[in-house]
C-alpha cells in the first residue's frame, strides 16, 4: 500500500493520548467487572474470587421481576419504534421532495436534541393527566414512552440503508410489472433487513438502559433493572450491583457481536 501523506499515528504524543482515552473509558468498567467476582461484601476491597453475587442476584426476586419488566418493555419498544422508523424512513427517502422535509427530519430526531429530563417531566405530567382520567396504571405508559425516544435510534440506520440503496433496482422492478407494494416487498425490504435489524437492536439496547424517563414515568412497583439498581445504590452497596451491571454489559456485547455476525453472514 502506498505511504499515507498524513498518518496521525506519527504525530508525537498521539499514541499516549489514545491510550489515556482508552484507559479513561475502560478502566472503570474493568474494575466493575473484576469486583463483581469479589468474595467479600465491599465493592472496593478485594477478598478473593467467588460467584456468590451472581448467585445472589439470580435468586433475588426483585431483580428477577425488574429484569423481566425491562425485557418486556425493551421488546415492545424496539418493535414499535422500528416499525414507525421504517415508515418514517420510507416517507423521507422514497417520496418526491416536499416542503418542510428538513423540518420533518428534525422532528423525527427531536428526542436526540431535547434534554431527556425535559421530556421526562413532560411525560410525567401528561401521563398523570391520563392516569387520572382513565384510571389505567399499567405498563403501557412505559412502553409508549420508550418507543418514542427509541424512534430516532431505529430511524437513523434504516434511513442510511435506504439512502445508500441503488434506486435503479426499484425502477427495474417497476419496469418488470411490480406494483409499488410488490416493489417494496420483493426488492426494497429484502435489502433493508440489515438496517432494520441494526435499528431494532439499537432501540432495544437504548430502552434497556434508560433511567431518567423510566424513573419519571413508571408507576409504583414498576421498577426496571436500571431504576432498581439506582434504588439499591441509595441503600447498602454490595458487589451484587456489579454482577447485575456485568450481566447487562454482557447482553449489550452479545447484541453487537450478533449483529456483526449477522451482517457478515448476509453478504
Amino acid at each position, binding site marked *: 500500500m502506498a505511504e499515507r501523506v498524513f498518518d496521525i499515528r506519527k504525530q508525537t504524543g498521539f499514541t499516549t493520548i489514545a491510550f489515556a482515552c482508552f484507559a479513561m473509558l475502560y478502566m472503570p468498567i474493568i474494575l466493575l467487572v473484576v469486583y463483581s467476582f469479589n468474595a467479600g461484601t465491599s465493592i472496593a476491597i478485594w477478598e478473593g474470587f467467588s460467584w456468590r453475587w451472581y448467585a445472589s442476584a439470580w435468586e433475588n426476586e426483585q431483580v428477577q421481576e425488574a429484569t423481566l419488566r425491562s425485557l418486556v418493555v425493551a421488546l415492545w419498544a424496539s418493535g414499535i419504534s422500528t416499525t414507525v422508523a421504517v415508515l418514517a424512513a420510507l416517507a423521507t427517502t422514497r417520496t418526491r421532495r416536499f416542503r418542510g422535509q428538513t423540518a420533518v427530519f428534525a422532528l423525527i430526531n427531536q428526542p436526540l436534541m431535547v434534554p431527556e429530563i425535559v421530556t421526562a417531566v413532560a411525560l410525567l405530567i401528561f401521563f398523570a393527566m391520563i392516569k387520572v382520567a382513565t384510571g389505567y396504571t399499567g405498563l403501557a405508559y412505559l412502553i409508549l414512552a420508550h418507543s418514542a425516544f427509541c424512534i430516532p435510534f431505529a430511524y437513523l440506520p434504516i434511513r442510511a440503508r435506504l439512502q445508500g440503496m*441503488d434506486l*435503479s*433496482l426499484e*425502477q*427495474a*422492478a*417497476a*419496469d*418488470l*410489472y*411490480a*406494483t*409499488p407494494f*410488490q416493489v417494496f416487498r*420483493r*426488492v426494497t425490504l*429484502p*435489502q433493508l433487513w440489515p438496517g432494520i435489524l441494526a435499528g431494532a437492536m439499537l432501540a432495544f439496547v437504548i430502552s434497556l438502559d434508560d433511567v431518567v424517563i423510566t424513573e419519571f414515568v413508571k408507576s409504583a412497583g414498576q421498577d426496571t433493572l436500571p431504576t432498581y439498581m439506582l434504588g439499591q445504590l441509595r441503600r447498602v452497596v454490595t458487589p451484587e450491583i456489579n454482577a447485575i451491571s456485568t450481566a447487562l454489559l454482557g447482553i449489550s456485547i452479545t447484541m453487537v457481536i450478533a449483529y456483526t455476525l449477522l451482517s457478515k453472514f448476509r453478504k
Partner: protein
Amino acid sequence: MTNAISARALRKVYPGNPPVEALGGVEIDIADNEFFTLLGPSGCGKTTILRLIAGFEHPTSGTLEMFGQSLLDLPPYKRQINTVFQSYALFPHMTVAENIGFGLEMLGRPKTEISQTVGEMMELVQMSHLADRQTGQISGGQQQRVALARALAPKPRVLLLDEPLSALDFKLRKNMQLELKRLQTETGITFIFVTHDQEEALTMSDRIAVMSDGAIRQIGSPREIYDHPADRFVADFIGDTNFLSADVVENRDGAATLRLGSGRTIAARAAQGVNGRVTIAVRPEHARLGTPAEGLLAGVLSDAVYFGTDTHFHVTLEDGTTFVLRQQNSPDSTAGFATGDPVGVCFPAEVAQVLRD
C-alpha cells in the same frame, strides 16, 4: 399503421437550481419491429428519452404515445415496455434464474410457464449453466446477458436498451451486436437502443436519430445519415469528414452550382433558397489523389499514414487547410506520390454534401 412509439414536442426540464432542460421539444416516430438507435454525445438526453418512455420520469410538456395510446398517465408497471439498464440493475438478492423470471412472476403467470420461459431465455443468452448463481458472482458480460434475458422474458412490445454493450470488451461486444440484431429480427420486438458509439449505431440500426443538446439533429437510415448528413454536427459526429467552404453561384430549385476555393465549379444538390457562402462535406474515402490538373482542389501532399488496410493522405490545400483522403491499399500498389509533391484532390460532384448551418 400506428407507430410503436410516437412523441410530439416532448420536453423535459429537470427541476433544480438552475433547472436543466434535458430535452427541448423532441419529435420521434418509431415504427413497430424497428431497430431504432438514439446516438449522441454524453449528456445529450438519450437516457432521458428512455426514462420518459419507460415511465420513470414525467415529461414537462408534450405527448408520448405507444401504439396510439397515450403513455402519460400510465405508471411504469402498466407499460408493456422493458428496459436493459445502463447499470444492469440486477437484483442482488436473487439468483440468475429468479432475476429472469421476475417479470413473469409479477404478471402472475403460472409456475410451469415461468420456468419454461426462463429456461429458454437462459439458453438464448447462454447462461443455463449459471442459473443458480447469485448475480453478484458473475462477470460483467454475464450480468449484461442476464439483464437482457430478464427484459426479454416477459415479451414486451418495446425494449429499451441503454448502452448495454459499453462494459464489454471489444470481441464480446462485436458478438453481442450481432446477437442483439438477430434477437430483434427473430422476436419482432421494437428495440430502442442508446449508444454513443457511431460504429455500433451504423452496423445495427434500421434507423438512427442523431442527438445533441436535447434536440434531434437528423433521423434516417444509417446510409442516409452517413452519406447525406443534414448538418455540420451530424457530419462531424458520424465518421470522419472534410469540411470545405464554397460559394453558391446559382441555385435553381435545389440544383446548385458551387464554386470551390480553388475556383473550380461543381454541381451539387442544395436546399431551395440556399445562397451565398456554404459549407460542404466530403468523406475521406470518397476522394482520391490525382495530378494537380485533374483535381477539383490543388495542394501539396504533406503526409501519408499507413494503416494496413488503407492509407490516409493529408493534403495541405492552397488556403492552408488540410484535406484527408483514405485510399484502400492493394498489395503491389504505391500511390505514386511522395510527400512534398503537388497533388490534386479528386471527387465526384455528387458526394459533396451541402450542409445546413
